């Protein structure tokens, strides 16, 4: 059995009205509606945030750390995702944004885009290793890594065995700060300014690492308003190492493969699209593909559920930020060589058994057989009214003892009709006596039966 992951995506019960919107959109069928409220199956949830985006009642929320939490450390460092640079109207350069992070209370800022530069370099080196199964799959989007663990375990060997830019940035930022200022590294905290919930989960239960280098995760939307005020007040120029276009472009779909320098790469955004392509990769459909960058959100991190700006607008703005960035190539390449060796994942990314039936192989086959038969007996509308996302999922839930066949409104309807017919018969046997009554009873029974048959035909 797997340990239960920490999850950032949660339900606000009071706001949930028990509709089927999130149920139908969850890519891993991790939601059930029970007693008129959504529940999340923790072993299946990949924290992609799809449900947060689609819920009109805003009942799905992402738990992240509050800004106050930076006080836990003597020296808190901000790690802004490059997505942050595209959030503010009229701001087309990172510098004022970085400056306002200092004003939020951070003692230093280390751009995740710099982490991305180092990771790009490490990946491009690793791509030369011959025995790597192709396509190599990016590990940057934590929701996609979880998706592969849960739904595409056969592709785990393809996932790149390097940490994400966020982890790289956290590690280097803390080490550099402690060294430069001669302080204890334990007093230095790295706080990622995040566009998404999955990063929070990736920090609390990292895949492929014993422990994350990141100490806290703060949502972009939670610092947005305060930063906007600071941005209006102007800023003093900074003297810190800055990221180049190479790192910043990771925020745009396709930017990662471009930064790594791979021509035969495919970038896909939007979780449904990613699932289709992973399915095809599993079928060995793309033989010449060497690199795959899958991003759970449409427009990649710019479309993250914790961002503020419309992701299409943000994409344009980030292009403009990149055009104005004078650093076109990476700086201080000497730190890279060391980093390449220290940024490998320290353990394997484990497959999850969340989608599997339990028991021995024999028992699993028996269960699968019963589930198939149960599914055949359901109408196949996949309406979600029963609280399970599809008829097949309801059949699984019935087999697992979490539901019964009458949770299906159509089955319930059939049952009510047959009960009604029985009651008519029962009533007749006690009350109806005359030959005319018997004739009328027959007529009613006939009618019920033919209604029933018509219903079946539909």
């Amino acid at each position: 059995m797997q340990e239960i992951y920490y999850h950032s995506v949660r339900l606000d019960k009071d706001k949930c009205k028990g509709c089927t919107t999130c149920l139908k959109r969850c890519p891993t069928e991790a939601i059930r509606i029970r007693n008129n409220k959504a529940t999340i199956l923790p072993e299946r949830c990949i924290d992609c945030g799809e449900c947060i985006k689609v819920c009109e009642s805003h009942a799905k929320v992402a738990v992240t750390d509050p800004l106050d939490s930076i006080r836990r450390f003597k020296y808190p460092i901000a790690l802004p995702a490059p997505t942050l640079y595209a959030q503010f109207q009229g701001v087309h350069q990172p510098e004022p944004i970085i400056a306002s992070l200092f004003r939020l209370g951070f003692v230093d800022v280390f751009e995740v885009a710099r982490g991305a530069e180092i990771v790009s370099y490490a990946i491009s080196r690793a791509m030369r290793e011959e025995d790597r199964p192709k396509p190599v799959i990016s590990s940057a989007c934590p929701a996609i890594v979880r998706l592969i663990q849960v739904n595409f375990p056969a592709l785990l060997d393809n996932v790149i065995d390097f940490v994400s830019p966020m982890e790289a940035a956290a590690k280097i930022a803390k080490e550099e700060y402690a060294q430069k200022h001669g302080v204890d590294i334990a007093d230095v905290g790295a706080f990622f300014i995040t566009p998404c919930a999955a990063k929070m989960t990736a920090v609390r239960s990292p895949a492929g690492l014993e422990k994350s280098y990141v100490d806290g995760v703060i949502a972009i939307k939670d610092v947005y308003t305060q930063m906007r005020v600071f941005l209006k007040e102007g800023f003093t120029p900074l003297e810190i190492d800055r990221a180049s276009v190479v790192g910043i472009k990771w925020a745009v779909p396709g930017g990662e493969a471009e930064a790594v320098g791979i021509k035969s790469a495919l970038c896909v955004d939007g979780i449904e699209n990613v699932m289709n392509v992973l399915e095809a990769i599993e079928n060995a459909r793309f033989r010449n593909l060497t690199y795959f960058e899958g991003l759970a959100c449409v427009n990649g991190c710019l479309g993250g559920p914790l961002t503020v700006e419309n992701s299409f607008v943000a994409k344009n703005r980030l292009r403009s930020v990149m055009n104005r960035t004078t650093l076109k190539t990476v700086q201080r390449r000497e730190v890279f060589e060391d980093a390449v060796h220290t940024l490998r994942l320290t353990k394997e990314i484990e497959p999850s058994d969340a989608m599997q039936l339990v028991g021995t192989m024999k028992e699993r086959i028996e269960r699968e057989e019963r589930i198939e038969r149960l599914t055949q007996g359901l109408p196949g509308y996949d309406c979600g009214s029963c609280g399970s996302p599809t008829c097949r999922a309801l059949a699984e839930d019935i087999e697992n003892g979490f539901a019964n066949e009458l949770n299906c409104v159509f089955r319930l309807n059939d049952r009510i009709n047959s009960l009604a017919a029985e009651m008519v018969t029962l009533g007749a046997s006690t009350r109806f006596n005359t030959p005319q009554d018997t004739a009328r009873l027959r007529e009613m029974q006939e009618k019920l039966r033919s209604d029933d048959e018509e219903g079946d035909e539909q």
Partner: protein
Amino acid sequence: MIIKETYPVKADDMTCAGDVSARIKRHMKRLGIPSSIMRRVSVCTYEAEINLVIHSDGGQIDFEISEDRILVRARDVGPGIPDIDKAMTEGWSTASNEVRNMGFGAGMGLPNMKRNADDFHISSVVGEGTDISMIFNI
């Protein structure tokens, strides 16, 4: 205990191509078939399914899974294969340009299936059809 299923495959219907392999894959995922085996079965089923769509006049795929093995059998009605040895050569294909432009017909299908299956058997009658059986040991 054994799970047996038969899926029809229509000729020339590229919109449905892949549906059968997807369904078979879902079964295997739920049953927890080891990744390495699942991958091989997926590749073979998909190749077989595409072959039926592209080269045959239609057919069916039988899928059987028991405790110790998986059987995939693809049978079609169609032109058949005149020279099986030649068809088993990598790079040899009779696919049209149209099909090749869609990324199929590279002449890798049959050799790929043979390589990935633990047991591979093919028989074909010209003018009648082709019958391919593949066994994968669990």
